[in-house]
């Protein structure tokens, strides 16, 4: 009996003790995996008391959107596509202004195969071998972008059967980085990741781009740190970090 009481008390204690939540929880599209830590570091440099109070959770924009809709405790939502924050505002999951912080483009990447820059990227893909990894077009904006681009190619009918779909932009990068897929049509920003340096990439300069945007969610409306971070992202310094990390700035297109 004493053992049972002990077990129950321990259980109760354990169930309580986990609650040590960070104050600002950011949900970020997975193409931001490489740039987000730099942004957070810079923000903490500017606001030393924010140190250790920010947490970033990554996922595909669609999945994060669904989780926020279902009450996930995220305070700022950085999507890879402005349609998601706009939809969140439209149905009351967020109340702030949607801010477009950068534009993302695509790049071809392969670990072993090189790209002949004298021919069209479509011909590059046709000449390549093996599986082509892209993110899932249903819920990952970069997957949709990559699919649109592929479908616009003359070579599309021959490429279609070679596609494999990853959960998110970052997982598509992982598929090619690990070698399980030979080539990938990836978020350009991810191909600048340190881990992706030992490979061959070709930027699709004239390819489609996606407008990336963020919004403060309903859960983050009362959080001062969320507003500060939001303001920081609108600053010139943040824009510089995005550009340095392989994003296009919003002005480029206008």
């Amino acid at each position: 009996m004493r053992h049972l009481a002990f077990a129950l008390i321990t259980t109760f204690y354990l169930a309580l003790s986990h609650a040590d939540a960070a104050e600002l929880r950011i949900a970020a599209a997975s193409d931001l995996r490489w740039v987000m830590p730099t942004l957070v570091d810079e923000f903490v440099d500017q606001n030393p008391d924010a140190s250790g109070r920010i947490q970033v959770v990554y996922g595909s924009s669609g999945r994060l959107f669904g989780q926020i809709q279902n009450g996930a405790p995220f305070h700022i939502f950085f999507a890879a596509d402005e349609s998601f924050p706009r939809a969140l505002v439209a149905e009351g999951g967020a109340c702030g202004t949607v801010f477009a912080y950068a534009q993302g483009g695509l790049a071809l990447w392969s670990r072993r195969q090189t790209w002949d820059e004298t021919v069209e990227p479509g011909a590059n893909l046709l000449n390549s071998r093996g599986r082509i990894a892209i993110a899932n077009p249903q819920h990952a904006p970069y997957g949709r972008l990559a699919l649109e681009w592929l479908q616009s190619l003359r070579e599309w009918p021959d490429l279609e059967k070679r596609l494999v779909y990853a959960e998110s932009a970052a997982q598509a990068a992982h598929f090619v980085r690990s070698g399980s897929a030979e080539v990938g049509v990836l978020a350009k920003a991810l191909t600048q990741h340190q881990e992706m340096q030992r490979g061959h990439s070709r930027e699709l300069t004239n390819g489609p781009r996606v407008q990336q945007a963020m919004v403060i969610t309903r859960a983050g409306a009362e959080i001062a740190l969320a507003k500060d971070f939001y303001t920081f992202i609108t600053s010139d310094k943040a824009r510089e970090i995005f550009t340095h990390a392989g994003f296009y700035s919003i002005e480029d297109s206008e």
Partner: protein
Amino acid sequence: MSANDLQAVWLTLQLAAVSTVILLILSLPLAWWLSQTSSRWRPFVEATVALPLVLPPTVLGFYLLVALGPEGFIGGSLEALGLQHLAFSFTGLVIGSVIYSLPFAVQPLQNAFSNVPRELLEAAACMRARFTDRFIHLVLPLAKRGFITAAVLSFAHTIGEFGVVLMIGGNIPGETQVVSIAIYDHVEGLNYSAANQLSLWLLAFSLLVLLVVYSLNRGQAVMKLRGA
């Protein structure tokens, strides 16, 4: 190991410990009833308990997310009472793990209870031992191995859980990011060395657990009648 990984390990151990205790408490009456009853409902209950063995974790996770979230009937009722809904929370994970690991607690216990010789119980009853006496002094000691197996398997199975936690957890460090999710996150972040380190720990741990279970069960035949 990074602070974040240690946090994930600690969270996983908490989740497994809490789920195991709850599972043992729930399974005890259920397994006893299943081992003794000749009710025609028995196959139905047994099948329900065994469902998580065959059901994809995504199905269970999906239903749980729908039920526990702010729109669902459980989460919604809680919200109506002014409480928090349970999706993306530690409590939600515990509920998911308990359902998901239920067969791993019930089945070893049920087997152990069925192996308690009926004659012993009847003899004890003839000596006017009440049900609680019989249960505490005969059934529990004889079913000890069943308890250990149930506890070890539930604990280990919760640690190895991935699909359900991914669906209802939301990958929040310190709250719902367990080791298996942390590994997934490291792989997606191309952080292979960290993924490798955590995976090796998990591999070693799982092997150890199975070794314990199998060495315990080796002597099972001895456990028949040993003067009560």
